[in-house]
């Protein structure tokens, strides 16, 4: 497999573009066809195969431009050089004699047009003319390969060495930002930084002006090299790693208990919940049933009526009915479950956005309908209003279910799924299980989601055992993964 393409696809996947293996195969075919010769054509061609939505196209453009960046080290511009020369002048080690400073600056200015790194690296040298003295030439030959490359300003060579080192230390496996330092160091080690350091130390030890000067040039070059490697790692990190750690965090968040999720993560959770709702709806919302009305299905009718000598006796119909689940959600928003209720409400809100027939209710002491509130306001307002309006007071299941009976019992029919979220802690009051029985009798499915772990059910004022007989299903629900699994079940059963 083409390594470059493979890396590029990995970078794309990292940037949240979904690339399936068939698309990878397609991409290879595209490259066989158009080749790597023209950048713009490659970009246009791959854009047809890899990203498949308008959003992904935008990400693709950005990633492509960064990935297929012209692979060379930064040119040091003139300002840098002047600065380097200036610094050299101020640096007591380098400024061996003051007369050289002017020469250095003059040269920096003159050499700017050529943008030659050797000069730039040698900015500290400040000597008129960047040619080595004969003695320096001899010294250079004894230096390590890396040192020689740095001194001669072999930018292409360094670039290649850097890429090779990156490959050797497995830079593309970088996945979190704290590894950046580690990988930079490994690359430098692989390139032979140690030898370079030794060279510098050796040169400095000598009692020789030329040697000192060469050491200084090497030091400058090393700094430049360090910054380039850092940039390179940074760039590769952005391409290959999970940049803001979002995948990792999403993974962790989806498994952690809802009560433990911090306020600052709410936004992210909200986004996850929305994604989840959308996914579930896409899977479940458009279930169809054959319906005994509509257009005549001649084929089926004829086949069926062969037995009756072709007389259309048993008539078949074509039309099918889209069956959308009807959901009634009741949510305890009292203090004890407030944190979970928050997510439940969030999810209800998302369901409301994509599903037409969700009625939502909230209760603690009394119960009220919040469907319209969810429809008309954005998620934050809807939730805070719900909590403010219905979240006061201690939980009273009996009273609340009574309210529910008045509000919506008549609306519950054999197509309705009822989701109840609560800890079933009724403060030793009447749980109102007879109303629960009515709901159970009328509806298609009743599901109770309890945020508490099973072993605390029926302990103290929890009256789960009173409700349990009137539920088709009872579930612990305290993480997003739970929530997703459960709602998927709801949608399947209610279809």
């Amino acid at each position: 497999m083409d390594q470059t393409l493979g890396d590029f696809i990995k970078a794309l996947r990292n940037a949240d573009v979904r690339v399936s293996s068939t698309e990878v195969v397609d991409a290879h075919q595209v490259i066989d066809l158009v080749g790597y010769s023209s950048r713009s054509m490659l970009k246009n061609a791959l854009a047809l195969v890899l990203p498949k939505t308008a959003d992904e196209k935008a990400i693709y453009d950005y990633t492509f431009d960064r990935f297929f960046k012209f692979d060379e080290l930064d040119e040091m511009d003139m300002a840098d050089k002047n600065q380097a020369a200036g610094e050299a002048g101020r640096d007591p080690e380098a400024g061996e004699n003051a007369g050289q400073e002017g020469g250095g600056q003059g040269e920096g200015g003159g050499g700017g047009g050529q943008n030659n790194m050797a000069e730039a690296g040698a900015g500290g040298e400040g000597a008129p003319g960047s040619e080595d003295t004969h003695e320096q030439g001899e010294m250079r030959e004894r230096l390590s390969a890396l040192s020689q490359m740095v001194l001669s300003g072999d930018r292409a060579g360094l670039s290649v060495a850097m890429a090779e080192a990156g490959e050797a230390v497995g830079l593309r496996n970088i996945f979190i930002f704290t590894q950046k330092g580690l990988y930079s160091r490994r690359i430098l080690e692989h390139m032979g930084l140690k030898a370079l350091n030794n060279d510098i130390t050796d040169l400095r030890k000598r009692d020789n002006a030329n040697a000192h000067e060469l050491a200084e040039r090497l030091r400058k070059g090393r700094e430049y090299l360090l910054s380039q490697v850092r940039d390179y790692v940074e760039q590769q990190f952005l391409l290959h790693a999970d940049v803001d750690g979002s995948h990792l965090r999403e993974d962790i968040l989806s498994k952690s208990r809802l009560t433990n999720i911090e306020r600052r993560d709410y936004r992210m959770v909200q986004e996850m919940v929305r994604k989840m709702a959308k996914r579930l709806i896409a899977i479940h919302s458009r279930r169809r049933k054959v319906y005994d009305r509509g257009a005549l299905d001649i084929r089926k009718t004829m086949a069926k009526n062969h037995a009756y000598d072709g007389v259309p006796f048993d008539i078949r119909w074509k039309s099918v009915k889209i069956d959308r689940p009807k959901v009634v959600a009741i949510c305890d928003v009292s203090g004890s479950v407030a944190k979970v209720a928050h997510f439940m409400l969030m999810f209800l809100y998302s369901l409301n956005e994509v599903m037409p027939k969700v009625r939502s209710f909230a209760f603690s002491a009394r119960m009220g309908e919040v469907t319209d509130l969810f429809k008309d306001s954005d998620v934050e307002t809807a939730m805070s209003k719900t909590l403010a309006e219905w979240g006061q007071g201690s939980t009273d299941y009996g009273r609340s279910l009574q309210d529910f009976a008045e509000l919506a019992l008549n609306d519950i029919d054999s197509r309705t799924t009822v989701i109840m979220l609560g800890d079933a802690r009724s403060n030793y009051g009447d749980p109102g299980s007879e109303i629960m029985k009515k709901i159970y009798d009328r509806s298609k499915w009743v599901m109770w989601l309890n945020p508490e772990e099973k072993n605390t059910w029926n302990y103290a004022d929890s009256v789960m055992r009173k409700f349990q007989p009137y539920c088709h299903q009872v579930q612990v629900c305290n993480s997003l993964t739970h929530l997703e699994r459960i709602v998927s079940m709801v949608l399947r059963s209610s279809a």
Partner: protein
Amino acid sequence: MTLVKPIQGPGGKTDSIEAIQAGFEELGYITNPQIATSIYLAQNLEKPLLVEGPPGVGKTELAIATSKYLGLPLVRLQCYEGLDESKALYEWKYGKQLLYTQILRETLGEVLQGARGLSESMKRLHQFSDVFFSEQFLEERPLMKAMRAPAGAVLLIDELDKADQEFESFLLELLSEYQISIPEIGTIKATIKPIVFLTSNNTRELSDALKRRCLHLYIPFPDTALERRIIAARVPDISVKLRNELVAFIQELRGLDLKKLPAVSETIDWARTLLLLHANTLDADMVRTTLNVILKFQDDIEAVGAQLTTLTNEALKAAERPPGLK
């Protein structure tokens, strides 16, 4: 851009991306490199091309232009909710089938004459060719027609997002294997693989399975330079000055918050309207009277009407600048 090795396309033409661009331009369809590349790849990889973008940017036109360019017949299937395979793929000719059974009953006596016993009668019946579900009674619908076109065809499945999800899944076999299964007959393979265009206005998200099988082309609103060229190609009689002005105006409208932004088709209509009214230059009154050509909602017309003079003046200024500068 370098020239790609020429490859024999299904239409019998050798094509490079440049040739496609030039050929389409001759037909009055101005492409950018991206669109031309998509046609090139669709031809050479033999993959269906899914075209998305706002309404009126020339998604359907692209398929039509391709059919003209390649000299292949265009088979069009307009999608709508409730579309099923009997309308898209094939149908039996029920009337004829009924007649056939009637005839069969009458001739049954002849066939079975002299047969002794039930088993022999059955044997004879089996020898009798079974034509009830056969090609003779098969009514071709667009998809089948495109598959069996003798010289290949361009198949346009228009506004796929309007059809049901079930229909989308039904298309998968066709899109990946270029074959369709008819339970009564068997599998029919395309003689020459048609070039398939699918268009979508994004009223709903198409499934991943479908997207995986297609090349995906997104056509956005054109930029100023491209739109100028499009107008020049489609309304050649219009003066350069007026053309630049009206393109600038439309480009400005697209920056506003409107219910429905004017697309290329509206720009073309507007250019034709202005030409018909013998306009030489854009002025606020002229724009006001013809605003209903480019804006299709009363709310939008009112919103734009309020700032019409400013917009017109800015458009006049922008028209003089070369495209690309803001």
